[in-house]
């Protein structure tokens, strides 16, 4: 580079850190994993937080179910109900899970765990084996559920314009009060 700073990254180094997996499967390593291997791994490493069937324990994330809730109050967003790309599940588990011992799983484990999570979501059968080859065949139910930020078109024109300064409303009434709810930590509020 112009300043000659830094040193070339070695192929091994790039391999060690460049693990991201993209929607088109770029970045997926060799290997495969089946649902039953995944179930065992999941029970051993994940279920304590995410539940035996990926249904979530207490406040820990639920990874399965929630279908049909996205337009309801309190949508349940899981890998099955919400995530548009399967690659995200692979990428995230490989880099961030299990929580407390991340970046410890082998690629084959991750294939199996992802297969199991798909199975928990009723998205594959119990004989499913996930690999790079069939990765893009898995249909993610909410794949079509996203659109790129459209605030510039749908909102900004609405809010722009000279704001009202006088007689902006006839009457004002209080419609909701936080004190009624009383969920604020005690030390923080008077």
């Amino acid at each position, binding site marked *: *580079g112009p300043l000659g*700073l*830094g*040193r*070339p*990254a070695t192929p091994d*180094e*790039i391999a060690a*850190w*460049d693990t*991201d997996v*993209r929607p088109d499967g770029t970045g997926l390593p060799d290997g495969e994993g089946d649902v039953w291997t995944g179930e065992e791994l999941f029970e051993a490493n994940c279920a304590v937080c995410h539940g035996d069937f990926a249904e979530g324990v207490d*406040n820990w994330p639920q990874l399965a179910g929630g279908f049909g809730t*996205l*337009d309801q109050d309190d*949508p349940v967003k899981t*890998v099955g109900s*919400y995530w*548009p*790309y399967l690659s*995200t599940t692979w990428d995230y588990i490989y*880099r*961030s899970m299990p*929580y407390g011992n*991340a*970046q410890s799983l082998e690629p084959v484990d991750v294939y199996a765990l992802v297969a199991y999570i798909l199975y928990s979501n009723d998205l594959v059968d119990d004989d499913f084996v996930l690999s790079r080859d069939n990765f893009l065949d898995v249909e993610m139910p909410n794949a079509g*559920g*996203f*659109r*790129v*930020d459209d*605030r510039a078109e749908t*909102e*900004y024109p*609405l*809010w*722009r314009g000279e*704001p*009202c*300064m006088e007689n*902006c*409303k006839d*009457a*004002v*009434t*209080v*419609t*909701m*009060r*936080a*004190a009624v*709810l*009383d*969920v*604020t*930590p005690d*030390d*923080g*509020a*008077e």
Partner: protein
Amino acid sequence: GAFAATTGTARAAESDPLITEPQFWAQGFGDGVDATPYGLPIEFESDVIRRNVEWLTADTISSINFTPIHALDGTITPQGCAFERHHSGAIELRKDDYRLMINGLVDKPLVFTYDDLERFPRENHVYFCECAANSGMEWAGAQLNGAQFTHGMIHNMEYTGVPLKTLLTEAGLGAAGDLAGKWVYVEGADASSNGRSIPMEKALEDCLVAFKANGEALRKEHGYPVRLVVPGWEGNMWVKWLRRIEVMDAPVEAREETSKYTDTLADGTSRKWTWVMDAKSVITSPSPQSPITHGGGPLVISGLAWSGHGAITRVDVSKDGGKTWQTARLARPGEKRALTRFYLDTDWDGQEMLLQSRAIDDTGYVQPTKDQLREVRGLNSIYHNNGIQTWLVNPDGKAENVEVS
């Protein structure tokens, strides 16, 4: 609490013994200059701290706390009480152990040490960093009773660092070809490794690979020794403990940009890539944690305004829940993508007030009401709630988080 501790008592016509009698602090010694090589706030300010809300998250490791904005003034946020958001806790990473890799569509993949970074030309900028989930608990209505909790996922610091552009240029962007449609993926060295994809245009515009904040090294909890600064864009993209930058021809669509930080609308579809933090403001005092203790008469209404699009040009304040508005005084002209302090110097008649503030930025964007936002988005967006906040101030000076018609 802070309430009692700040109430003055010298209203009497007779002489005040605090003045007429010698006080020990006017006679004896205070602390010497060796007492605190690195100091902390005085004990009486012990309530001006970050607070977390236990029920929000399963544990404190992947969690959030809040800047005590109700007790601060000016615009700089001290690092010691600037909010934290971690996905796997705040890690301890020595400068010596720090490595930064640039790979992908670059001419020469490189590894930098911390020392290497200090050899590139540096810049200084003040920017706010707001979590996209700031005020996110308020979509369904007034919930948390304090500006710290409703608006405290924000801080504002003077950063020193190297433009991301400089580092990308060092690795060489020739290999990336046409830069339109190219992306820069950034990830951290912690166990969550929190990766985000940033369009090349933004990466080259003003992103900063920062190592100092407010003059000194970044704090552990803000990414020591190196974090990314993505001015005006949601805090989740400001990757801490930055370890890798990859130039790509597509976004990664990582968990933090699909499962999280996407905004679900009423019809169940969701917006993605909602990066910019729209113009927003909040009155920090009076507010539930900062009540009026002095009764009627002169009152300073103080607050913060900011916009990820640019500079704040104007802030209006309403005392009657939005029926009428007055333009507040900006303490200093708004700076691009930085917090702006506003004041309304007013005379309180001692009656109930419904206090609101409304920010306007140099793109002409006017901060909307919460109901206006709900009309477009419904109640399930979680992120990007920049609606107008209302505090109900009672005649006794206490304030409450409310919503109004």
